[in-house]
């Protein structure tokens, strides 16, 4: 006997495209289904959505287009007919400021620079810091959801929020799988560009360089400096 469960579908109109979407699908996924790309930062397919960066913000209307409010498309699930606009002046204004805030906080993280460049930011009006962690939470989620480790978590709150292993040392829950390390966008070695004509900077070859979150920055890593290995 086959048992089929009825899934409701709803009419979703995204940037003018109309389609029937299964209940519970996120706007981001629905947009992908009709080929519309929405920029993201803390989202990764396969991991649960976090809704932290808000870069995937879109305008949503559930009253037939009379009023629109802003929502994060990665975590907004469709449970009724909706109209979505992914690229309006309001959304662009939001994304630009978010990108400016991001790159002011972490200018040495390539992903932040990429996002800023994509939204046309060429100057930052805030004091530049040098954080290497974007607080995207991908490492926390991959450890928790895919590896079953639960060795990393968010610590503190507000501007002091960080990603860390408990007590800032690699915990016994850590499986040494390297998942957090590989998924971290902050780890990417920034391209400094060539300064002198003909110069080879050699940075891209320095792959053995430690992740920038280390040492003692955000969480314990896999290099020989970690006390758990001694």
């Amino acid at each position, binding site marked *: 006997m086959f048992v089929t469960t009825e899934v409701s579908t709803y009419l979703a109109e995204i940037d003018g495209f109309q389609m029937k979407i299964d209940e519970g699908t996120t706007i981001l996924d629905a947009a992908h289904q009709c080929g519309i790309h929405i920029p993201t930062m803390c989202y990764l397919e396969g991991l649960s959505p976090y809704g932290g960066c808000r870069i995937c913000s879109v305008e949503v209307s559930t009253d037939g287009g009379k009023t629109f409010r802003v929502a994060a498309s990665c975590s907004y699930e469709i449970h009724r007919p909706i109209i979505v606009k992914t690229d309006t002046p309001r959304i662009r204004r939001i994304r630009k400021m978010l990108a400016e805030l991001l790159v002011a906080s972490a200018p040495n993280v390539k992903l932040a620079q990429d996002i800023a460049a994509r939204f046309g930011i060429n100057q930052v009006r805030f004091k530049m810091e040098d954080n290497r962690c974007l607080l995207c939470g991908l490492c926390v989620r991959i450890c928790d959801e895919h590896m079953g480790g639960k060795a990393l*978590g968010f610590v503190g709150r507000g501007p002091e929020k960080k990603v860390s292993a*408990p007590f800032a040392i690699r*915990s016994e*829950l850590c499986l040494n799988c390297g998942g957090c390390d590989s998924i971290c966008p902050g780890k990417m070695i920034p391209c400094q560009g060539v300064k002198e004509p003909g110069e080879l900077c050699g940075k891209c070859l320095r792959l053995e360089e430690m992740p920038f979150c280390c040492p003692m920055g955000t969480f314990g890593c896999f290099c020989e400096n970690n006390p758990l290995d001694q």
Partner: protein
Amino acid sequence: MEFSMVDSIIDKHRCKSWALISILQDIQEQDGYLSQYVLRRVADKMKIPITRIYGVATFYKTLNLVPQGRHNITVCSGTACHVRGSNRLLKEIMSFLDVEPEGTTEDGEFTLNVVNCLGACAIGPVIVIDGKYHGKMSASKTKNLLIKCRS
């Protein structure tokens, strides 16, 4: 701190995971702070990953992970107290004791905390020293109290 003390507090709250914050607060009453060993014990007994316990312990202001001074001074920085000059009061205490908020003086005597409103706004500026409330405080009144505490 004895693990049996930790266990009995957890049992008093019937080991309910939703009571975690109250459990940590009750345990903290004993030593004034939550040590690594105590937190790991809670994780073991309540079968909650230590990562989550650590995340909760670092999220809430009332939970301390470092030993506190012999005396605790809390300055209320609620709006009503602020408008009555609590910021100036705080600066004076900081310079008198040479300590930052959430820090402890070098001699281990005083820990300074700032709280966002104790709800005693009518008698602001309010300072709590070792659980005792003092209202309508000024810089000089506070200094005298601190000197009394020291001796």
